[in-house]
């Protein structure tokens, strides 16, 4: 029970990060491998404001989100749009965007190393115990989980209840047909990419309240987010959330029962099973 709840709390934040990546990949068709660096940057932001001005990380996210939105939008417009325009096929765009975002990710790590050094950083915020269902948990984990739930919920409502959300979902299904019904695909793709970046950075600020990060920690989160997106199905919000919670629980199980050093191995075992048996995702339909 203890493990289950800890896993679910972790999975909630994972869901947020994976939603960010899913928006970028499902709509803008860019597999953004620099996603984890944005997450770490969000964490650095929360760290910086908390240690220098005692600003709560839950307030910092209102600063981190617009900043990450702006940065992601610029990255999409300046660096990735030319690739979309020059690509002759989906496959070529995939290869190009993977290499370009790898480049970005390394540049990001390099810049953060130069700015903050290679040390681990963490801070103590809301590190008080709280009792849930008979077991004690750290308050910062619970608070981060609740914040993640609220943001995921808002995102879900926005995607399913508004006109802009409808356009975004239409592009995810078929970019060509979306253009035919009068949707400004390039503009909406840029917005989806920027929004995905903002969501990921907020996830980073939340996760930094209870995990220790360092400048090069991003790639592990990128990997986990990718595994979640593939497990849940590209462009599927519900699947992403279920897959993220599932991964959180499995990881916590392995970490507490076998060895904390094997979390990525656990994520990979899940990944292999999904690839072998349900490559279209948990809720995905079999392509005809």
């Amino acid at each position, binding site marked *: 029970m203890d493990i289950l709840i800890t896993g679910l709390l972790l999975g909630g934040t994972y869901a947020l990060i994976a939603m960010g990546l899913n928006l970028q990949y499902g709509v803008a068709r860019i597999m953004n*491998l620099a996603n984890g660096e944005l997450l770490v940057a969000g964490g650095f932001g929360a760290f910086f404001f908390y240690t220098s001005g005692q600003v709560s990380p839950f307030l910092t996210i209102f600063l981190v989100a617009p900043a990450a939105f702006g940065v992601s939008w610029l990255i999409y417009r300046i660096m990735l749009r030319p690739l979309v325009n020059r690509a002759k096929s989906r496959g070529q765009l995939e290869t*190009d965007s*993977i*290499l370009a975002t790898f480049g970005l990710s*390394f540049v*990001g790590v390099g810049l953060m190393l130069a700015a903050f050094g290679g040390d681990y950083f963490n801070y103590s915020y809301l590190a008080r115990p709280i009792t849930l269902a008979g077991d004690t948990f750290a308050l910062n984990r619970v608070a981060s989980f609740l914040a993640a739930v609220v943001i995921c919920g808002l995102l879900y409502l926005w995607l399913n209840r508004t006109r802009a959300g409808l356009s975004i979902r239409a592009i995810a299904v078929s970019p060509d047909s979306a253009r035919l019904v009068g949707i400004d695909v390039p503009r909406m793709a840029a917005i989806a990419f920027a929004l995905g970046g903002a969501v990921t950075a907020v996830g980073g600020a939340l996760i930094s309240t209870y995990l220790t990060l360092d400048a*090069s920690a991003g*790639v592990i989160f990128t990997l986990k987010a990718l595994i979640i997106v593939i497990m849940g199905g590209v462009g599927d919000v519900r699947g992403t959330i279920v897959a993220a919670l599932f991964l959180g629980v499995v990881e916590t199980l392995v970490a507490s029962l076998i060895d904390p050093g094997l979390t*990525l191995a656990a994520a990979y075992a899940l990944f292999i099973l999904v*690839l072998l048996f349900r490559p279209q995702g948990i809720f995905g339909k079999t392509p005809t």
Partner: protein
Amino acid sequence: MSSAEIRNLILTVIALGVCALLPMADSGYWLSIGLSIAMFTVLATSWALFSGPTHYISLATAAFFGVGTYTTGLGFETLPFWSLVALAGMFGALMAALVGLATLRLSGVYFVIFTLGLAELVRQVITWAQNQSGQKGLYVLTDITEAMIYWMLIALAAAVYLTGWLIGRSRLGFALRIIGDDETVAAHSGINTARAKVLLFMVPGAVAAMTGAILAPRYVYIEPSLAFTPMLSFQVVIMALLGGTGRLWGPLAGVVPFTLLWESISSNFPNQTTLLLGLSFLLIVYALPHGFVGLLDRLRQRVTGGVS
């Protein structure tokens, strides 16, 4: 064989023979640079054999390499060295086949993601196994000198070039070029695309594992974080793409300048190597999509006025 092919063959043999003389001239700094260049030539060329025609970006080099070093590390006391290299090659090929079977039936993205984490996965498992048995690393104490390692790498490079040349002439190589152009067309013309890709992926897997096995004595002490350093995979990708994957000798054109640049950056600004990696990736995507080979071809076309 046409006369041009015979000429190329003779030139390659002479070039490799000249390279093999390096340990006679210097046994210090330049030999160690030569060793790095030979190692990356082997890795990048075998990488390009698979990723060049198929456009699948493999980041698994470090995983295979690490498996190779551990094969030597665990077996050098009981088995002769040459058999360990062969054994490492078999392990590498087997691992590549398993990875290929799981991912190569699907789109390229799954493959990249999977190979990206493979080295980290194997590293975690080995670290865990070592913690269980209570040891931290392995000492590889042999009487193999740097010069011998260098010669073995040159021999391996010759084998890689020969394999690449033979694949290029075979039905498999032809099938792969079609897959690279258009996978649907390839499938419709009766090519078993998954099988061709898995078979070819076994080549870089085996070669990288053999390279790791050969280099293990140089490290003297091996531990998981050293043997499975993810940097290696990225260096190999950059060198191969920088040179160009369209020709067999293309990666070599990227290996030599990048190794020299890397050596000077990492000795003068050790914290900026990640930034260098990132900028190189961006340079390749935005300025040199076909590498130095592509640039050379364009220049040649301009000189001859488009008449080939």
